[in-house]
Every structure is written in C-alpha cells, then in structure tokens.
C-alpha cells in the first residue's frame, strides 16, 4: 500500500509520536487508526487513559478476517473533554484468538468483551466473567465468524437467486423444520443441562449466610424476564442481604436476533429498515447514524444537500423529544404512578409520530434516511405544523410536565440519592448520553465532535451533577428544552431545495475500507462500525448500542440500594430491549 499518501489524523499522530516503537498506522487501503501488538495493548491503553486523556473506551468489537487468518479487535476511545475518536486495533491469529482483557483499565469493556467472545469467539485473558451474554449456553459456535453458517439459510448473500426470474413462493419454515435447525455444542446435552445461573441461585441458597445480629439471611431474587418494569424481556439476578442489594447481574439476550449477522448478509441499502428495529422508539436517530457512517465510506459525492441536513436534524431532535417524553412517562410507571403520566407523555409523542407518519410513511419504522439525504421531502404544510409544535405546543407541554412531576414529593423521595453513579464511575463504565451527563460529565457528541450541521445551532449541553435517579429524570427535561431550541432554529433556517444528493439508487459503488460513525442518540452514543470489502454487502457491520452499554453501570448503581429501588434505577437508565439484545 501507499505509505506516503496515508494521512493521519492529528490525534493519531500525537499517539504515534509517543509510542513509536510498537504502534503502526493501519496501512490498508481505506482504513484508519493505529495497530498495536497484543503484548503491548495493556501498556498502551493505560498510558492513553492516564497520560493522554483518552478516558472513555466507547466501543469494543472484533472483525473476522477469514482470508488473512486474522482476528482483529477494534477499540474506539475518546476524551471526555471532547474531540475526535481514536481507533486502536490489535490483530491475533484466528486459530487461537487471545487478547488481554481491558476490564482492569476500562471497566466499561466488561459487557462488550463478553459480547465479542460470544459472537466472535475472541478470548479476553483476565476477564473476570467471560461467558456468553447474548446467546445461551447451549449454542454451538460463534455466529459472527465468517465460517459459521446458520442451520438453514437461503443463500450466502442477499439478494437471493431464487426470487427472480423463476421465483416460486414458499414458506421458509418448509425448509427449516423444527428440531432440525438446532445444533448443540459437543459436550452439551439439553436433557441433562441445568442452567448455570439457576445453579448459582441454588448455590446461593445453599450457602446461606445468616447474619446473627440482625436475623437476616441472603437471598437470590430474579427480577424478570417477565416483569412489567423491565421494559421487555430482561432479567436482573439480585443477591440480597435483607432488603439490601449486595450483588446484581443483568441477564439479557432474550430478544436476540443477531442483527449484525443479518446486516452482513444484507446489502448496504437493505440495512436501513433493519436499523429502525434496533431502538424502535428512535428509528430516525438509528437511520441517521447508519446513513452518516455509510456516507463516510462513500465519500464527498454523497454529501447531503442543505435541505436534507436540516430535515435530518429536525427529525433527530423530534425523535429525542418523543423518546424523552416516553422515558419520563414510563419512569413514573416504574415508580407506581400507573399510566396517567405515561398517557400524557404518549399524547405528545403521538403528535410527533403524526409528523413522522406524514413524512416517512410509518409512525415507528420510519426508514426515512438514504445515503446522501432523505427519501422524500416534507409534505406540504408540514413545516408550518412543525413550527406550531415547537413554538407553541411542546414548550407549553414540557412546562406542564414540569409542574406536574418535578416537585412531586414521591418522585423526589424515591429519586434523590438513589442509584448514584459518580462522574469517574460513569466515565469508567462507558456510560453515554443522559446517564453520563446526569453524572456531571458534560459530554454531548453534538458539541464534542459535531456531525451533520449541529455546529450551526445554539444550544447548551444539558448536565446535572448528582448522578442519582432524580438527576437522570431531570436531565430529560433539560434535553427536551434544548432540543426545542435546536428545532426552533432549524425550522426557521430550513432552505428550499433538493433532499437527495444523487438520483435514488440501491446499489452503490462501495470503496474498500472501514468507517465508524456516531450520533448522539436519545439514549446515548449510537455508533456504527462498518467494514466494506468493495462488494455490495458490508463485510462487517457492528452497532454500538447505547442501551446495552449503559447497562454495564447497572450493577454499580444498584449496589447497596434497597430491592424496591432496582425498578426505579432501571427505569432511570431508559433501555429498549430491541437495542440491548439486537
């Protein structure tokens, strides 16, 4: 490859100058970042964190380069004071992929390394609890490896050949019979298997530690998977001493569908409607992140026109508002104010969804963004409607919500001082979005590393300083108010013109390379890592899901709290299981 033409970003040069001995820039065509030997990884990461200020490890994932016999682990880091992202990679032999675990340096790596182990089979030495996280124990193999095949699949890649010109419809289940599509690991017998966590549960009850002085004993309680307050199928295994939580482990994966494997089979454009289904409250934001990432790969020609940029910002901010209304409403549900606040929140949300439906054609699964713009212009009269919403209705309603709930003694009593996450913990645990900002870290990608046209708008980064449940509740009010400010500027400044840079197309001349794009989604940093090998289908497609990674901090928040507060703490994080389990 061409060494002279490789232009390094300034932050990469700074790191390279510091550690010239064991880091090289990634020389492959279209790739960025720095490559480090696994032996020096821990040393480098420690130095990055302590000396160079890269205190947030935001994303950990792997790529299986089958042809090169390599397994690559990709880390994305940033400084919580702002600035672009730094990409570090390390490569190991595919036959025995062992990489030192970063949990000792960045605690936030815990779940993501488990995910990489689960889906790609990369062993992280020194990880305290390296077991499957999304798949179950009886699952054979690591599905994101390129040589892993589904028990039944139509074809290697979409589009499938048998659809045209001689397509005859048949139901997939005709080829995919129950019992024939299940494979177990060699040493696994489903008949005799006892689920590991249950074993743990029984172990816990066997080793009862009775506190003589207080006459209490330890108890393991499963909250979920079927529990009205877990926002879906999600389980918390809590170990209690009396009513106090002394240990907690989130269990997820009940809604897992391997979004990333599906994404790698799809063509680039086919992935857009699938991203709608990640965080199904915020399909517009999900579209936004994916479109930005692929546009990075595609280059200048796919720079969206002005009007499209404004429409994108308007849609993303409306999404944030409706998401936060729902977060507030359902948080009150969790506190026991059953459905009256939720219903008032849904009322505002419905009015915003009307806008989405009129523009995109669907209330939730919007599929509105395209590479290089948006699919169609706003319908006639929509700008006026949005203007009325953001100047009249939404400011009025958020004030009413303020009067309605903020001073409420029950909310205050249940929230203040409960589930505290200090700023250091929040950064260390890779928290993002409202969870991070409620802990006193004013980090917002729209300001720290602006994308699209966010650098043009005047808004404040919402921040609260106590890191407790109450602050995580309040910060959503702040963010709605800031979003309204952005929307008012955007709707005043929106120009006329095209909304798509090029003619509509579904096949793209995709150059080789990789891209990591991120947006400030309503739930936190939503990142997409896409690797293209020059074909129609992405070689690797990874989603950095904010709900999933924010759950890394759940245990820390819950330690020492009462069992009744678990529900409030979980509600204050605001997760969506479609995104957690992917």
């Amino acid at each position, binding site marked *: 490859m061409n060494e002279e033409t490789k232009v390094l970003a300034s932050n990469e040069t700074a790191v390279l100058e510091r550690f010239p001995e064991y880091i090289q820039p990634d020389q492959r065509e279209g790739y960025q970042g720095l490559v480090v030997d696994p032996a020096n990884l821990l040393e480098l990461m420690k130095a990055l964190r302590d000396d160079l200020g890269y205190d947030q490890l935001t994303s950990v994932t792997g790529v299986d380069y089958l042809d090169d016999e390599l397994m690559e682990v990709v880390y994305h880091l940033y400084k919580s004071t702002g600035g672009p992202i730094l990409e570090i990679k390390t490569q190991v032999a595919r036959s025995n992929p062992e990489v030192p675990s970063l949990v000792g340096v960045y605690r936030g790596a815990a779940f993501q390394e488990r995910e990489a182990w689960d889906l790609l089979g990369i062993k992280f030495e020194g990880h305290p609890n390296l077991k499957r996280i999304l798949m179950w124990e009886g699952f054979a193999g690591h599905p994101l490896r390129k040589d892993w095949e589904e028990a039944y699949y*139509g074809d290697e890649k*979409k*589009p*499938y050949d*048998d*659809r*045209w*010109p*001689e*397509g*005859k*419809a048949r*139901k*997939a289940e005709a080829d995919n019979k129950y019992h024939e599509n299940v494979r177990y690991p060699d040493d696994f017998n489903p008949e005799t298997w006892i689920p590991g966590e249950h074993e743990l549960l029984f172990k816990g009850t066997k080793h009862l530690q009775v506190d003589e002085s207080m006459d209490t004993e330890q108890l393991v309680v499963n909250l979920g998977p079927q529990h009205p307050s877990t926002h879906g199928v999600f389980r918390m295994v809590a170990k209690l001493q009396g009513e106090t939580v002394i240990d907690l482990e989130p269990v997820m994966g009940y809604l897992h569908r391997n979004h990333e494997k599906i994404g790698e089979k*799809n063509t680039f*454009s*086919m*992935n*857009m*409607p*699938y991203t709608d289904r990640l965080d199904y409250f915020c399909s517009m934001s999900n579209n936004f992140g994916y479109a930005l990432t692929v546009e990075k790969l595609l280059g200048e020609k796919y720079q969206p026109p002005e009007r499209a940029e404004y429409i994108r910002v308007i849609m993303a901010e409306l999404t944030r508002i409706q998401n936060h209304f729902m977060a507030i409403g359902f948080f009150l549900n969790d506190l026991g104010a059953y459905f*009256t606040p939720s219903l*008032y929140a849904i*009322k505002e949300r*419905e*009015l915003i969804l*009307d806008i989405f*439906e*009129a*523009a*995109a*054609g*669907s209330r939730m*699964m919007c*599929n509105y963004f395209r590479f290089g713009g948006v*699919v*169609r212009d706003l*319908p006639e009269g929509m700008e006026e*409607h949005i203007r*009325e*919403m953001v100047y*009249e*209705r939404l400011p009025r309603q958020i004030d*009413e919500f303020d*009067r*309605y*709930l*903020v*001073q*409420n*003694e*029950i*909310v*205050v009593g249940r929230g203040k001082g409960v589930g505290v996450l200090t700023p250091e913990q929040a950064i260390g645990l890779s928290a993002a979005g409202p969870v991070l900002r409620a802990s006193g870290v004013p980090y917002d990608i729209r300001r720290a590393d602006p994308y699209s046209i966010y650098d043009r708008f005047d808004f404040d980064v919402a921040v609260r300083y106590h890191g407790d449940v109450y602050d995580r509740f309040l910060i959503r009010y702040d963010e709605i108010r800031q979003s309204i400010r952005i929307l008012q500027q955007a709707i005043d400044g929106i120009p006329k013109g095209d909304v798509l840079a090029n003619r*509509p197309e*579904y096949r793209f001349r995709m150059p080789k390379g990789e891209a990591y794009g991120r947006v400030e989604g309503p739930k936190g940093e939503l990142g997409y890592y896409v690797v293209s090998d020059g074909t129609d289908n992405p070689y690797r497609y990874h989603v950095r899901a904010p709900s999933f990674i924010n759950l890394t901090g759940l245990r820390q928040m819950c330690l020492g709290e009462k069992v009744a507060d678990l529900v409030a703490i979980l509600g204050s994080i605001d997760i969506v299981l479609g995104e957690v389990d992917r």
Partner: protein
Amino acid sequence: MKGLGIIKGIGVTLKHIIDTYVVDFKAGRKRYYTEEGVRQRMTPDTKGIFTVNYPEERIPSPENFRFVPFLVYDEQDGEKDIRCTACGICSKVCPTQCIWITRAEDPETGKPQKAPAEFYIDIDLCMNCGYCAEYCPFDAIKMDHDYEQATYKRQETNVHDMERLLKPASYYAEIRPLHYAQEQQQRAEEEAKRAARRR
C-alpha cells in the same frame, strides 16, 4: 410545605379532566365519530381526551402511509393492463426477500417476455419498508393503505399471489391522489418527448 408538589401535580390531572368536558361541551356532537373530530384531536392545539375509538373512528392515513405492497394495473377496454414488466428490481432491493417473481415466457419461442407470469409477496415477511415501490421504474408496485390484514390462518392466506395483489390504477389514484397526479404528469411529459423524437 410537604405535599405541595403532589397537590400541584394532581391539579394538572384535574385540569386535564376538566379540559375534556369543556372541549366536549364546546365542540358538541361533532367531536366524536366524525372525521372532523378525529382531525381536531391531531392538531397541535388539541386539548382534553385524545384517544380514538377504533374501529368506529379511524385516524386518516396520510398519503405517504405504507402498508404491504400491491400491483397496479391500468384498465383498458375491460382488460387488465399490468404495469409490471418482471424486471426484478423490487425483488432485488427487498430487504427481507419476500418477493418472488416468475417471468412470463413466450409459449412458442420460450423467450422471456416483459410481464410477470407469477408474482408472490409473503406478507408475513414483508416489513413495509417501501423499497419496492420506491425503486420500481414503472410505477407498477405501490404501498397500500389497507392495514386491516389480520387472519386466522397465516399459512393459507398470507402469501399474496398476483390475483390478490392486483389493484386498479383508480384505487391507487384514490389512496394517493398527489403521487398519482405527479406520475401521470411525468408520464405525459415523457410521452410528449417520445412523440417529438419520433417526428
């Protein structure tokens, strides 16, 4: 004073209750079970109760609303002139690969013709993304507005064949008047261009 916050909050709830009755009283009978009433509940200054009593009341579908595709045919002298040319683009862009097309063949020569012999859409798979309608170069496949598709036996009813999929252009014009008018205009322009070239 302790409890003031709760009282304030209850005040807001009370206001919502009273609003409902005030609005009902002012609007009278036309607030419920009329289209005007439903539309009023969707405006930014709506107050009071906002739920819609489905199925007696229905939220009007905006033109862009999309729910499972259908095939458009033009009516010509009582015969169905199917717009589809079996080019296969819709089945290639479909993210869930739920479209199957068999291209028609000339019975004598065996050459492929520009028409579909069979056309299936498995609406169990369809995710209503609208790509097929978006990329169809012949305006032959469009997204429907009919969202009431619940059935008891999905294996028997949910693979739509051509008979089920075909709907007249007049139906299309009815559910999407703006799009239809736009396309007709485009077609007329192209026709004029072609005529000019021929001359």
